[in-house]
């Protein structure tokens, strides 16, 4: 404990030093700054939205555990981001195109006057923090009902540090992927393929749940509520990723909504034709699949491209959840691989098909389906490099983190805990007390 207090004192001194190095700058655009601050709040709301989305799909005996794990991502990653996450992702130069340095650890030297483009650097720090938070949260839907809580908390901080932060640096922080010209507007690779690949790795290490513990969703209306909050927050995610309050931000807003709406319809029609009944759970899942797929493409593709990406996402993710999972046999409880891994892959690939100079100007080529030329094909190749590299790195690094946890503190709960439910055994609280009042007595 004493060591910790020294650490805190050191942090405090660093903060004091940092706060004395303020200098005045102009170039801040108040409109941009205001929009991105608002976007940061929108994206932060996505994480509780995700918690409800996942919680509603959990077994009723694990619903608190699921919401709690996702909620703890806000608690842990917010602080990790300030300590070193922002520095590895964006700060302090570039180490081999792979990591940022540690020179802005603790946000050292960043003052209220520091700028990032036309934004206050703190606005940028806040906005990007919310992405790091939700990306870790996305993974946890896969592990419903069988992950130890202490292992989960350690996983959150390790994964954010060794997987999210480097991949974020590759694409947006001046690393190799961004320099190569791989297009990812708001996080198809960084957020979705990254979390989908990690989910696959983690469920392979954890193993399957017992058949009797695979329960139907506890609360489908809560899933719909969560999906709606995600949809709402996603406007900050995609339109905010323009990092300015300009026409392209408005464009990304419309593209996002269009693709998502198309994906809802495509998913519902798929299950209606394939299984005979349309479901609310399907509509909520289709919305998230569409949001995921349009994420990398939202600042690059036109409105009709967005409709097509939405349709691909709705149909592709539906069959990934229903067919692919069953065929490969992994127990991805809430379909993180099917929705985020596959949806992100569809989006990252389709960005190379539909990106248009109508939106981007001459800086990037037309996509293959727009220009039908060699430049489009090259862009498609770059997209494939980006998505394959993310799948490979995230999967491998997650396996390593998972193995370290497995052979130190252990990652899997006991069979007895899983049968009773993690809410009672790990947290001592039930999600619902719907029995008659006489069943519980207040202990004074």
């Amino acid at each position, binding site marked *: 404990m004493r060591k910790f207090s020294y650490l805190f004192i050191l942090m405090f001194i660093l903060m004091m030093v940092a706060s004395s190095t303020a200098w005045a700058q102009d170039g801040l655009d108040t409109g941009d700054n205001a929009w991105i601050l608002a976007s940061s709040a929108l994206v932060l709301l996505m994480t509780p939205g995700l918690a409800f989305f996942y919680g509603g799909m959990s077994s009723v005996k694990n619903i608190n555990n699921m919401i709690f794990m996702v909620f703890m991502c806000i608690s842990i990653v917010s602080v990790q981001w300030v300590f070193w996450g922002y520095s590895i992702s964006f700060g302090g130069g570039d180490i081999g195109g792979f990591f940022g340095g540690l020179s802005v650890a603790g946000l050292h030297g960043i003052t209220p006057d520091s700028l990032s483009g036309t934004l206050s650097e703190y606005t940028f720090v806040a906005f990007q923090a919310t992405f790091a938070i939700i990306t870790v949260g996305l993974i946890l839907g896969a592990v419903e009902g069988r992950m130890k809580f202490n292992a989960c908390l350690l996983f959150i901080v390790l994964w954010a540090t060794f997987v999210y932060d480097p991949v974020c640096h590759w694409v947006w922080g001046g690393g190799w992927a961004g320099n190569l010209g791989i297009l990812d507007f708001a996080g198809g690779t960084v957020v979705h393929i990254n979390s989908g690949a990690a989910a696959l790795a983690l469920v392979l290490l954890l193993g399957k749940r017992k058949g009797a513990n695979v*329960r*139907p969703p506890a609360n489908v209306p809560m899933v719909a509520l969560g999906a709606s909050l995600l949809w709402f927050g996603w406007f900050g995610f995609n339109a905010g990723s323009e990092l300015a309050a300009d026409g392209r931000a408005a464009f990304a807003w419309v593209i996002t909504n269009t693709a998502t709406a198309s994906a809802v319809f495509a998913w519902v029609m798929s299950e209606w034709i394939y*299984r005979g*009944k349309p479901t609310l*759970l399907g509509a909520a899942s289709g919305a998230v699949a569409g949001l995921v797929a349009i994420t990398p493409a939202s600042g690059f593709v036109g409105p009709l491209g967005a409709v097509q990406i939405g349709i691909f996402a709705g149909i592709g993710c539906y069959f990934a*959840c*229903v*067919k692919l999972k*069953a065929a490969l046999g992994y127990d991805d409880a809430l*379909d993180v691989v099917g929705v985020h891994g596959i949806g992100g892959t569809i989006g990252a690939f389709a960005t190379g098909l539909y990106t248009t100079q109508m939106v981007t100007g001459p800086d990037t080529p037309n996509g293959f389906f727009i220009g039908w030329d060699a430049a489009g094909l090259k862009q498609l190749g770059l997209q494939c490099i980006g998505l394959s590299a993310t799948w490979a790195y995230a999967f491998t690094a997650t396996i390593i983190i998972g193995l370290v946890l497995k052979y130190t503190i252990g990652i899997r709960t006991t069979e007895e805990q899983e049968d009773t439910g993690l809410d009672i055994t790990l947290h001592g609280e039930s999600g619902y007390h719907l029995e008659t009042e006489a069943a519980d007595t207040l202990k004074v």
Partner: protein
Amino acid sequence: MKKIEAIIRDEKLGAVKEALKAAGVAGMTVTEVKGHGTQKGITEVYRGRQYAVDLISKIKIEAVVDDKDVKTITDTIVDTAKTGSIGDGKIFVSSVDDAIRIRTGESGLKAI
């Protein structure tokens, strides 16, 4: 005295309750129950995963009545709770030795 236990569809509770009141049944106890009979259950599908729901929620109405009223009351229940499809439920009739009203201590027919 006879006890009538009728297991009926959830959605028929309102109609049966009103019909029993109209037929002069003084009191009844209603319970939400789960079970299955000839109707073997239904299948729910969530994201392509099928769950067999073989215990279906039903309503159980219990009423203790005078022997002479049994026929009228069971007929009333059959008339109001019937849809003609599988899953309409069942009625069980059994003998009751005694009944006692807690407030007054009265027993037998006076207590029901």
